[in-house]
């Protein structure tokens, strides 16, 4: 696996190749039967600007892994049992003001310099000189600052991910109020240096920290009312622009409708608008098209692709739909029973699968040439993840199982540059993982 200890020397100009790296992530769930090892030592990197597909059967831990980035796990019964999710937030490139130049490699954004060493490279930032945060350890307040601003998420079912009691505009506005209140005030022509009740009230209104008195004053006191309205107008413009970007026709009208008045595709566009509102560095798309029609699906995928390319964001695309993953992902990580069993470039995974599970998964995809009534399937089912034994997780279902597979656990190691597999067939002498604690 290409761990990016790259360019310690030229840290100030070169963007590190990875924006996030997951190491040894373990998420367990307490249950009556014992500890469920839902995610049990997941390793992968997300490169800057790429789309990484996370594929696997239901229950293999792909969604839990995705949610770990935002610390969206129900903490009891879930337990973060170990590992780290390192994330390097980016800021807009100072050299070109977000236009894209040689310094930032055309993406318009650069890593935030590490606050401890100011970009020189230190243990805190693993020598990259970029601010590196362990998302599992940052404070709740810091996490709230990251959520929606640096990392966003697109949910599976847009019908359930929108609050039925708020209009689209109200829900979308929240992102800006949370993360862009300074910009809103600026757009509304309010001086950041201004002090006094009016400015304070406006600041609170624009940051969603308004008190009853602020709201009353904004409703009754004409000068404040006028200015509060210009803030609201700035907010409205932003919402409409965000919606417009997802090719929603007539965003000003859509803003004022409730979720139940929109179609599934429209709702997913709203979700995408919300996710992309603050130009996040990383977008976690948790099966964003499963709840949609196939025709709408293609358009939504194109839309995500376009917007991602425009902004240079990275995407983690969680899916069980291999054809979609093949179409849109740069790299693919195949997960099985809480582990990444194979990771590589999309071509490598689809044309040269090495892990028996990946091979089985690919064979199970029906094509137009599959004879009627004959669908390939992998025998057996996903193992119980309660207190697993130190053996290859796929051993029970694997056709090529041998002695080593049941004795110990294979780890990911390279078969080709950029292509890692965790299987003893590829690495007869593969280094073994330390036995599970």
């Amino acid at each position, binding site marked *: 696996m290409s761990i990016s200890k790259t360019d310690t020397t030229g840290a100030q100009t070169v963007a590190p190749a990875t924006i996030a790296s997951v190491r040894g992530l373990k998420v367990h769930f307490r249950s009556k039967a014992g500890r469920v090892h839902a995610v049990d030592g997941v390793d992968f990197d997300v490169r800057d600007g790429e789309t990484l597909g996370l594929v696997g059967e239901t229950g293999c831990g792909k969604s839990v892994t995705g949610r770990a980035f*935002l610390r*969206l796990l129900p903490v*009891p019964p879930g337990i973060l049992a170990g590992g780290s999710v390192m994330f390097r937030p980016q800021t807009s490139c100072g050299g070109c003001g977000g236009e894209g130049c040689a310094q930032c490699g055309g993406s318009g954004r650069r890593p935030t310099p590490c606050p401890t060493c100011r970009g020189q490279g230190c243990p805190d930032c693993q020598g990259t000189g970029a601010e590196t945060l362990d998302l599992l350890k940052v404070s709740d307040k810091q996490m*709230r*600052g*990251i*959520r*929606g*601003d640096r990392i*966003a*998420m697109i*949910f*599976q*079912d847009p019908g*359930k*991910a*929108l*609050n*039925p*009691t*708020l*209009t689209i505009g109200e829900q979308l506005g*929240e*992102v800006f109020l*949370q*993360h862009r209140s300074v910009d809103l005030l600026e*757009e*509304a022509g309010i001086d950041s240096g201004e002090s006094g009740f009016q400015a304070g009230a406006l600041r609170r209104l624009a940051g*969603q920290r308004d008190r009853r008195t602020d709201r009353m004053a904004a409703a009754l006191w004409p000068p404040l009312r006028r200015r509060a*309205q*210009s803030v*609201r*107008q*700035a907010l*409205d*413009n932003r919402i*409409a*622009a965000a919606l*417009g970007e997802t090719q929603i026709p007539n*965003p*000003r009208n859509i803003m*004022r*409708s*409730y979720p*139940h008045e929109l179609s599934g595709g429209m709702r997913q566009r709203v*979700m995408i608008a*919300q996710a992309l509102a603050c130009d996040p560095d990383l977008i976690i798309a948790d099966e964003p098209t499963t709840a949609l029609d196939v025709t709408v699906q293609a358009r939504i995928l194109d839309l995500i692709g376009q917007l991602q390319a425009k902004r240079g964001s990275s995407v983690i695309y969680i899916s069980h739909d291999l054809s979609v993953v093949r179409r849109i992902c740069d790299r693919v990580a195949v997960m099985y029973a809480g582990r990444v069993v194979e990771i590589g470039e999309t071509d490598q995974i689809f044309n040269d699968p090495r892990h028996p599970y990946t091979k089985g998964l690919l064979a199970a995809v029906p094509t137009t040439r599959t004879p009627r009534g004959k669908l390939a399937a992998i025998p057996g089912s996903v193992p119980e993840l309660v207190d697993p034994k130190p053996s290859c997780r796929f051993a029970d279902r694997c056709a090529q199982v041998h002695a080593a597979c049941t004795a110990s656990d294979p780890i990911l190691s390279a078969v080709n540059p950029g292509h890692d597999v965790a299987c003893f067939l590829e690495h007869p002498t593969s280094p073994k993982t330390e036995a599970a604690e």
Partner: protein
Amino acid sequence: MANTNIEGAPIRRRQDSALRVRLRRGGELLGLILSNPTTVFGLILIFGMLGMALFAPWLTQANTPDPYQMPRDWGALRMPPGTPGHPLGTTNTGGDVLYGVIWGSRTSLQLSIVVVGVTVVIGTAIGSIAGMVGGKVDEILMRIVDVFLSIPELIFALAIAAILGPSFTNIILSLCLVFWVKYARIMRAQIILVKQNDYVDAARVIGDSRLNIYFRDILPNAATPLVVQATLDMGAIVLIGATLSFIGLSESGIAEWGVLVSEGQAGIASGRWWASTFPGLMIFLWALAFNLLGDGLRDALDPRTESRR
């Protein structure tokens, strides 16, 4: 920022439109409620009784100094309905039944609004804390609720009111102490249910604070069953309040339907039916009206109703 949208067309001011959106939604809901004839009947009854309470001083000459005390006409005891000056007759002690019925609607309204208001607020607060915080806090709060729920409402309220001494204020107090548990239970269950929705996660994903999520995403979506229950209880509380008054836990001579029924019951055997019947009828109508409205609200607010889904 110019006041134009992307296409360059001028935009309307948002406040007006936001209001219009609210009105549209309110109108939709109202249409749904009004499409059910029994609900409309309930509403008519409620408005009738509210009107009676509101216009009480114009409908009858208010008693001085305290209008909530029954006026006594010592020259006209036990008069049947139709007596000049006393269209619904008088009680054993010369109280005008019509006066009691009209001013009793004020007492009942006061009783149900205060009790429902206080208990809904307490119940929502406690249920929300239990549901939002969870864990040990939830456990402790819910065990307290269990203790309260293990005693039948009426008997519990009766005991408290008896300890506090006979007065109408004490009836209100005892009902407040008893009724909040039901709302706490409903609210907790709702919050736990609503919390699992994706849109709560979605709100967390955009970096919202817990308080903001609670007020914007959870509470509005959790409130429906509470609203329905509160409406039903508006009627039930008057019923229980009247029971307590009937037993004699409120001060005598007050213009309250339960007290009037109690005062008149001795005369029923000797044919003086009117002193108990008219206030009793009012209690019945009051409870019926709020039950009809509550049922209608339940249907209209049900998310499975097709026009809203």
